[in-house]
C-alpha cells in the first residue's frame, strides 16, 4: 500500500508541472468529514497520550505525577536491552530485506522460466497473517520435534534451540520477519527496475558491458528510489515490530528478545497504564528521531531517471 505512495513522490521530485497553485473547483468543506475522522481517531488520541504519559492512571482515575513515568521507564532494566534489541532487529531485518529483495528482483525481472509463478511465490508470505506465520515457525523451530532441527539431524547436525537459546532467539525471529517481508521489498524493487528505460541497457550492450557491469552501473543507481523506499519502510516496521516477536517468543527466554514495543505491552498488561503510555511516547519519538532525518537525507540524494 505504502509502496504505491512512494512512486508518485519520486516522480513529483522530477520535472513536475511547475504550474502555480490553481484554485480548486471544490469547496474546502469537502475536507470536513475526513478532517473530523482524522481529528477524532488520530489527533485527539495523540495529544491526550502525551498528557496521560505524565499521569498515573487506571480505569477509575488519574493522578498527575510529572515526568516520573519517564524516569521509571528509563530505569526499567529490560528497557535498555530492549532498546538495543530493537535497533539490532530493525537494522538486521531492513539490511537483509534490501540485499535479498534486490537479488530476488533482479532474478525475477530477468528472462527465466515460470517468472510469474515465482513472483507470486515470493510475494505470498506477505499476504499471510503475522500471527499465523509466528505460530507456524514456532512449531517448525521447536528444538526437539521441529521440522528444521529434524531435517538438520538427518544431515548429522545438531540444530540449536532456535527460539529457546538466548543467543539465537532474536536473530531467529528476525529471519522469519525477513522471510515474511522480503516479498514486499522485492515487489518495490521489481517496480523500480522495470521502470528503468530500456535505452540504457541497449547502450550498454553496444558498449559490450557484462551482466555485472549492467547491474553495477545501471540497475543499482537507477533503482535507488526503490532502495530508499525499502529501507525506510522496513526500518519503520522493524523499529515498531511487535506482533511477530510476541507470537514467537513473548520477549523470551527471559528478556533476551524483548524489543521496546514488547516492553511497552508488558507494562500495559501489568496495569501500569501511565508507564506504558510514556513508553509509547518514547517509541514515537525514537522512530521520528531515526526516520525523519534519514528520510530527509535519502530524499535529498535521489536522482531522476
Amino acid at each position: 500500500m505504502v509502496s504505491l505512495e512512494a512512486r508518485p513522490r519520486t516522480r513529483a521530485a522530477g520535472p513536475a508541472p511547475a504550474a502555480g497553485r490553481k484554485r480548486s473547483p471544490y469547496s474546502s468543506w469537502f475536507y470536513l468529514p475526513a478532517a473530523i475522522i482524522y481529528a477524532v481517531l488520530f489527533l485527539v488520541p495523540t495529544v491526550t497520550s502525551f498528557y496521560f504519559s505524565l499521569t498515573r492512571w487506571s480505569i477509575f482515575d488519574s493522578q498527575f505525577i510529572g515526568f516520573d513515568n519517564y524516569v521509571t521507564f528509563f530505569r526499567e532494566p529490560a528497557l535498555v536491552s530492549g532498546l538495543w534489541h530493537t535497533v539490532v532487529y530493525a537494522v538486521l531485518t531492513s539490511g537483509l530485506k534490501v540485499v535479498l529483495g534486490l537479488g530476488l528482483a533482479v532474478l525475477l525481472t530477468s528472462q527465466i522460466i515460470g517468472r510469474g509463478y515465482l513472483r507470486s511465490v515470493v510475494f505470498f508470505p506477505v499476504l499471510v497473517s503475522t500471527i499465523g506465520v509466528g505460530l507456524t515457525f514456532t512449531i517448525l523451530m521447536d528444538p526437539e520435534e521441529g521440522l528444521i532441527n529434524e531435517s538438520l539431524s538427518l544431515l548429522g547436525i545438531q540444530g540449536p534451540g532456535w527460539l529457546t537459546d538466548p543467543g539465537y532467539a532474536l536473530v531467529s525471529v528476525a529471519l522469519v520477519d525477513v522471510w515474511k517481508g522480503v516479498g514486499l521489498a522485492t515487489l518495490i524493487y521489481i517496480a523500480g527496475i522495470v521502470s528503468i528505460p530500456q535505452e540504457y541497457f541497449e547502450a550498454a550492450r553496444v558498449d559490450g558491458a557484462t551482466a555485472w557491469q549492467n547491474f553495477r552501473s545501471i540497475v543499482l543507481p537507477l533503482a535507488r528510489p526503490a532502495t530508499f523506499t525499502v529501507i525506510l519502510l522496513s526500518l519503520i516496521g522493524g523499529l515498531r515490530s511487535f506482533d511477530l516477536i510476541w507470537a514467537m517468543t513473548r520477549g523470551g527466554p527471559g528478556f533476551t528478545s524483548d524489543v521496546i514495543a514488547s516492553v511497552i505491552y508488558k507494562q500495559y498488561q501489568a496495569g501500569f497504564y501511565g508507564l506504558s503510555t510514556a513508553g509509547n511516547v518514547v517509541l514515537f519519538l525514537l522512530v521520528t528521531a531515526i526516520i525523519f532525518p534519514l528520510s530527509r537525507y535519502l530524499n535529498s540524494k535521489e536522482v531522476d531517471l
Partner: protein
Amino acid sequence: MKRRQIGLAVFSAATLALGACSAGSLGSSDEEGGGGKVTLSFLTDNQPETVKIAEGLAKDFTAKNPDITVNVETRPQGTEGDNIVKTRLSTGDMTDVFMYNSGSLMQALAPQKNLTAVDDFAGQLDDNFKKAVGSDGKIYGVPFGNYMAGAILYNKEVYDKNGLKVPTTWDEFQANNAKLKAAGVDPVIQTYGETWTSQLFILGDYHNVEAASPGWADQYTKNQAKYATTPAAKAGFDHLQQVHDAGYVNKDFASAKLTDGLNKLAKGEGAQYPILSAMVSQLIADNPGSENKIGLFAIPGSDAARNGLTVWAPNGLYIPSSTTGDKLEAAKKFLGFVASPDGCASMGQASTPTGPYAVTGCKLPDSVPQAVKDMQTYIDKQGASSLALEFLSPVKGPALEQICVEVGSGIRKADAAAKLYDEDVKKQAQQLGLEGW
C-alpha cells in the same frame, strides 16, 4: 440534496454510536415488576470447568428458589477479562453478580467504592479466605471453587521404585534428585514453554519464608524487607538455580508446555513437578487412571519442623454496588447459597474438587484424587499451611515469570535475579500508591 444526505449520514452514525454505549444495560429494565420474579445475571470467565460449575450453581439455586432465575454470562480469561470487569464496574454496567479473583487483584477493584459488603456470611467462611476478600474489616465476597496449593506433584510409583521418602528439607529433596538422576528419571520437570509455570519454586515457597520470619508480608508491603536481603525469601531463587545447575531438569525444559509436563509426570518420565495443585484435574483428564498415582508435598525449606504448604484462596463471587433493590436481595440470597454446604455439593457435582472448600461444614468426598487428600492433611494440621504472598500483600512484580525463566535456564544468577525482582516490585508498589516506596 447532497447536504441533506450528509446530514442524514452524520445523524445515523451518531445514533449508532449512542446505541452502542447503552447496549450493555438493556437487561436491567426489562424484568422489573414481574410479580416477585427476579432474574439475576452472573458473569464468570469462559474456562469450561468454571462455566460448568457456574451453571450447576444457577440451576441448583433456582430449584430451591423458584422465584429467582440466574443467567450465566461469560467473559474471556486473563488480562482481557480483567479489563472487561474493570470497565463494566467503572461504567456501572456490571452484571448483578460476578466472579473474580480474590486477594490483591480483588483489592485493585476498589471494593469500598465498587462492591457491596456481605458481612452476613462471615460465619460461614474459612479464616484464610476471609483475609483474601476482606478490606477495612469488611468482607466482600464468598468463595467460588476450592483452595489450591503451590506445591510439588510427584509420581508415587517412581518414588516407590527408587525407595524414596517425601522430603521435608531442601537437602533431602536434593538427595532424592541425585538418586533419581542416577536411576535415569528426570528428577524435576520444568516447562518454560508456558512461562507462568516457572514461578512455583518462589511463590510456593512462601510458607517457609513466613515460618522463618513471621510477618514478612507486612514488612515487604511497607518496603522494609526485600527478596535480595532476606535469605529465606531469596532461597526460592537459589533453589531454581541449583536445580538447573545440577542438571536435574528435563532436557526440553525451555520449550515444553504445561501439558507436556503433566504427561511426563503421569508417565513417570519425570518424578516431580512444582506446579499448582489445580492442574491435577487436567492431568487426570488427560491420563485416566492416574488418580492415585500422583501425590503432593509442600516445597521443602531449610527447617523440617516448620515446613508447610502455601495455599491460594479460591476466586470470589461479588455483588457490584450497582445492584440494588429486589436484585440485591436476590443476589445476597444467591451468595448465601454458594457459601453453604449445599453450594459446595452443587460445585462438587459439576466438577471434581481439586482442593479443600473455604466454606465451614463442607467436606470433600472420599473419591477425590490422592494429591487432594495429601493437601488436606496439611490444611488440617495447625500451622502447616499459609496463604500465598499475593493474598497477604498487594505487591507482586509482573516480570517474575521472565526472571524465573532466566534463573531456571542459567541466563541469570539467583543473586542478580532477586535484586532485579526487587526493582520490578517497586514499580507495582508505586503504581498502587503505597506508603514508603
